[in-house]
């Protein structure tokens, strides 16, 4: 393929996501990799992968980087925060006022957009990792499970073992005592998911249409089910939720190129 294409790269605390976008807004390819320690190299690797998948050659006509490693992408002409990019990526699909929940590897965000897609307000969780992807990884570690097994286990029960603690480290200790008293592992996993939802609900009243994005949501649909049950209404999950930030970055790259 030839012609213009744009790139958005989201270097998160645990994963790097990259989206290539055609001039008409169609997603050409997505690439994903562990962020590791060499952000620059990882971004390059993702770009090569995505170009191969999309069958395009040459440098993108514009690249915007976002996420914690946003300033480390040497081929990006501009950077934007994850807050901007998740907003842009969600609005592209929602086209209405929306409250966005992004559950990331290291932090959670709530972003409010108005009807025109302009940001009205945003919030980040307190600096503690409670309720984030890091929390879920820690819980998996304590239970000796692969993170990929968690969603299936949580789905297999309707009886969460409630974790009362706010703190990730205390929650792990709590899990030990639940295990000692014979609580089922599936119930503990579901309890951990409930605790993730609790942390989100504490951040914001989440009025109006709600969308959920991020890797945690992509890999653990049960979290969205629990969230819907708690809110008493549907929560929209955009296509490829883990890539919403990268999509927003690519959309911003396209917009900047046409400005």
């Amino acid at each position: 393929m030839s012609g213009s294409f744009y790139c958005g790269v989201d270097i998160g605390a645990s994963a790097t996501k990259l989206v290539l976008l055609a001039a008409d807004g169609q997603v050409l390819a997505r690439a994903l990799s562990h962020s590791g320690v060499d952000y620059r190299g990882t971004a390059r690797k993702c770009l090569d992968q995505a170009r191969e998948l999309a069958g395009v050659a040459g440098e993108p006509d514009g690249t915007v980087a976002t996420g914690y490693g946003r300033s480390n992408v040497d081929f990006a002409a501009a950077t934007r925060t994850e807050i901007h990019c998740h907003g842009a990526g969600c609005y592209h699909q929602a086209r209405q006022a929306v409250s966005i929940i992004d559950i990331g590897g290291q932090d959670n965000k709530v972003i409010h957009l108005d009807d025109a897609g302009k940001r009205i307000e945003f919030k980040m969780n307190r600096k503690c990792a409670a309720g984030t992807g890091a929390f879920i990884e820690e819980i998996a570690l304590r239970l000796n499970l692969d993170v990929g097994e968690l969603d299936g286990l949580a789905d297999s029960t309707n009886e969460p073992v409630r974790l009362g603690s706010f703190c990730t480290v205390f929650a792990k200790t709590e899990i030990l005592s639940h295990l000692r008293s014979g609580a089922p592992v599936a119930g503990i996993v579901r309890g951990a998911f409930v605790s993730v939802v609790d942390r989100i609900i504490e951040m914001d009243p989440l009025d109006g249409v709600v969308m959920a994005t991020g890797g945690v949501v992509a890999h653990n649909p049960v979290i969205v089910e629990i969230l819907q049950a708690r809110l008493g209404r549907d929560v929209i999950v955009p296509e490829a939720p883990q890539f919403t930030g990268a999509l927003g970055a690519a959309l911003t790259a396209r917009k900047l190129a046409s400005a």
Partner: protein
Amino acid sequence: MSESPIKKIQATGMMRKLMTEHFLELDAAANSSASDRPLIAWCTSVGPAELLRSFGFLVYFPENHGAVLGSSRVAADLIPAANARGYSPDICSYLTSDVGSYLKQQTPLMKAFGMKGVPRADVLVYNTNQCRDVQDWLAFYQREWGVPLIGIDTQRGLGEITADHLDGLIAQHKSLIPTLAEVSGRKFDLDRLKEVVASSYRCTLLWKRVLELAAHQPSPISFFDCTIHMGPAVVLRGTPAAEEYYPVLIKELEQRIADGIAAVDGEKLRYYWEGMPVWGKLRDHAEQFAGQHACVVASTYCNSWVFEAMGLDDPFEAMARSYTELFIVRGEDWKEDYLKAKFADYGIDGIIYHDAKTCPNNSNCRYGMPQRMTRATGVPYVTINGDLNDLRMYSEEQARTQFEALAEQIEESR
């Protein structure tokens, strides 16, 4: 390496000289064995410094030392020593870093000013107008040194300040006199007190003028500069040194305005900082904002340091009113009205609330204020989690992202 975008204020040299003289005077007094050496009173930052000066005490402000420990980034090494003595990591980190400094006998004052150490108090004087921690803080030293601890207990959360409030506070100020007379060996001198209060008033008017100059667009001075340049208004108020300093600073800032020089080049965004500074990150924050062409032009921390009631005729009423009219003492509605007026006066585009883990008293974002203020004014906000001194409570990356996101949001809406 690129040059720092922070512009140096020339008057800083004079300020440092005056502050050095202040500290060396305290050091000499603390280390003198002469029977007529000047005595030292420790006073909380918004305590009755004027009354203490009227008795001839040299006044030392432990919170100033707290800020020094924070900005020199040694607090994290000192706080654990206080924690180990039972002072929780959740209470005021000025207190814990100062007590830690005492326990470890380490203070940057030694290197900065050649002092032998923190000057020991002959009397400890507090006002709980700002918090209860100050009383507990000075009580630590009372137990260590066996010197008198006296103070004023101010009610907090006040809306209107009534005659009843004032009567009680005036009486409390007067009740300090016998102890101060006994420790100092001097009689109370009303005329001397009037002179000191009048000097404090002149200092307040000068500091107010500095703050007002920041309303100019672009601002000639930032919040980060003000946190440093308010030093004389805090520790030298009521002395000629403070009155000597501010006209020099004002002249320089007026010249900046005349020459079109801004504190932040290409100022595009004007922010209000609500809450304590993150002392160990002052420079980083100043540089981050300057990089976004954002100037923090006003703050509760610096702007509430104006005591207009010091101009009243009765010096006791002047002190009682001045130290009760403060932002930190007031109720939520009063605070919100104050902030709305400041946002209008300074042309504020965005607000940064600092939720300081160990100072609930200066963290006004905890009872829904940011949401209410933004609903009422339309000015967007962010809340950063951090602390005044304990950098273990601060996440660099989160704060950076929030500052950037605020700038994006404002620029998108233009």
